[in-house]
């Protein structure tokens, strides 16, 4: 039996995110350079950009896992870098690699949050966990361990674990990479439905153009640590910026391949 998808009643509110003049260096290497963003409460905001451009690092700043070199990140009126903010806001981050607890079964991975925060009794926890597993069609994996799962399944467990938290701010780091096309579509629907039912602000880092164009309220392009463009998806159907155009619709040219061009540049 697959439970019809209904989100748990949403308690409290959701939060917007403000990133102001954010710089981040690791040692001497600058990774984020003067990033400013304004994500409105309840928005689905997609962040796109090439690998290594700093998207995950940006998300970690919002989650309070990295401290800005300069500039600031605010969630609602709270400073994201302040540990006390986590007592105010339920924030869930779906890590790019899942970050499941390897010593715990899938069920216990999901149950950890409500257990540690003593949100309800074991019966209530069971309902919440099984419901989240059902949404991602993972019921059969409940008693497996993360090491026995494929990459795509780990990703789905990570998303289920975020749903159990009933978050007030949801951050996804490449949620559909490693998923097959059907699962990607399902997940896109889940992100949109969840926002519809709970009005939760959702930040989605993704390479998935289909996802971004289907559900994003706005999209930002991050290239080499800078914001290259922000706007509604329809503004990027035919982007004026050639770099963004090339990123969204790279032409595969076998006669004059990219790697050859690079080689020539090095000579």
């Amino acid at each position, binding site marked *: 039996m697959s439970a019809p998808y209904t989100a748990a009643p949403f308690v409290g509110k959701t939060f917007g995110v403000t990133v102001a003049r954010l710089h981040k260096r690791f040692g001497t290497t600058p990774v984020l350079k003067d990033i400013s963003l304004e994500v409105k409460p309840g928005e689905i905001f997609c962040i796109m950009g090439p690998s290594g451009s700093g998207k995950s690092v940006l998300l*970690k700043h919002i*989650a309070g896992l990295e401290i800005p070199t300069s500039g600031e990140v605010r969630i609602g009126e709270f400073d994201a870098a302040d540990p006390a903010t986590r*007592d105010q806001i339920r924030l869930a*981050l779906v*890590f790019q*690699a899942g970050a499941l*607890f390897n010593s715990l079964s899938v069920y216990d991975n999901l149950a950890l949050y409500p257990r540690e*925060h003593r949100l309800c009794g074991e019966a209530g926890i069971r309902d919440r966990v099984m419901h989240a597993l059902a949404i991602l069609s993972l019921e059969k994996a409940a008693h497996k361990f993360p090491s026995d799962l494929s990459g795509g399944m780990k990703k789905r467990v990570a998303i289920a674990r975020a749903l159990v938290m009933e978050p007030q701010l949801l951050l996804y780091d490449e949620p559909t990479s490693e998923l097959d096309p059907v699962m990607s579509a399902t997940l896109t629907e889940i992100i949109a439905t969840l926002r519809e039912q709970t009005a939760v602000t959702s930040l989605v880092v993704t390479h998935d153009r289909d996802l971004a164009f289907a559900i994003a309220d706005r999209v930002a392009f991050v290239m080499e640590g800078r914001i290259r463009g922000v706007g509604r998806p329809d503004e990027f159907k035919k982007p004026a910026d050639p770099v963004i155009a090339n990123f969204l619709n790279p032409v595969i040219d076998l006669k004059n391949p990219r790697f050859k061009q690079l080689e020539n540049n090095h000579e």
Partner: protein
Amino acid sequence: MNHLTAIFSHIGGTVLLFARAVTHIRTLPRQFPRFIEQCYLIGYTSLPIVTILSFFIGSVLALQSGYSMENFGAKQFIGTLVGLTMARELGPVMVAILLVGRVGSAVTAELASMKVYQEVDALVTMNIPPERMLVLPRLAAVLVMMPVLAIIANLCGWYGGALICQYTHSISVDSEAYFTALKTYMKPRDITDGLIKAEVFGFVIMLVCCYIGLNTRGGPREIGASVTKAVVTSLILILVLDYFVTKALLYS
């Protein structure tokens, strides 16, 4: 100079880790299953090797002292020598060294891997302090199990010595005489001093191994590097602390 500041910042970090873990002390009762699991890992699974090793250390101690004390005609004091040495020194130090090898290294490897694979970051975003879930139950368990292990080590060492004394021809001190000597010249204080030592070693080892594990940075390769660092640091600390704790206990 840089090395020195690094060492002080690590000491500071370790103390801070302890302070953070202690602030969650009231959650210990509801972390009881985790505490029991750690007691099992630290105490029960170390039991066979602790028994065997301390038995042999007691035996060797009896052999060596039998050989050297013969010259003074002091064979009747072998029991005292083995008893005191085990209780005051070798019991706690040996249990501590075994703890580093069996438990400390595993703790560092586990926590380092959790750090590298972002499980620790996941805990932080879930507002579950890693110190509460990962450090506190381990510290509590090691404090409970170390004296138990040390007592078992003492007993096995004493009996190992007794057995050797009785059945080695050149020594042949029967176990009755051996244990009389052991009892006559040993004070309860000798045993409790040893237990205090074991407690100090266990606590420091666990804290240091947790700290090094949780401060691993980089990729999977660093897990191995952290384990090496934790083992070496713990062994050095045991021997250095041994001196100072012994001095404090003897002359206070």
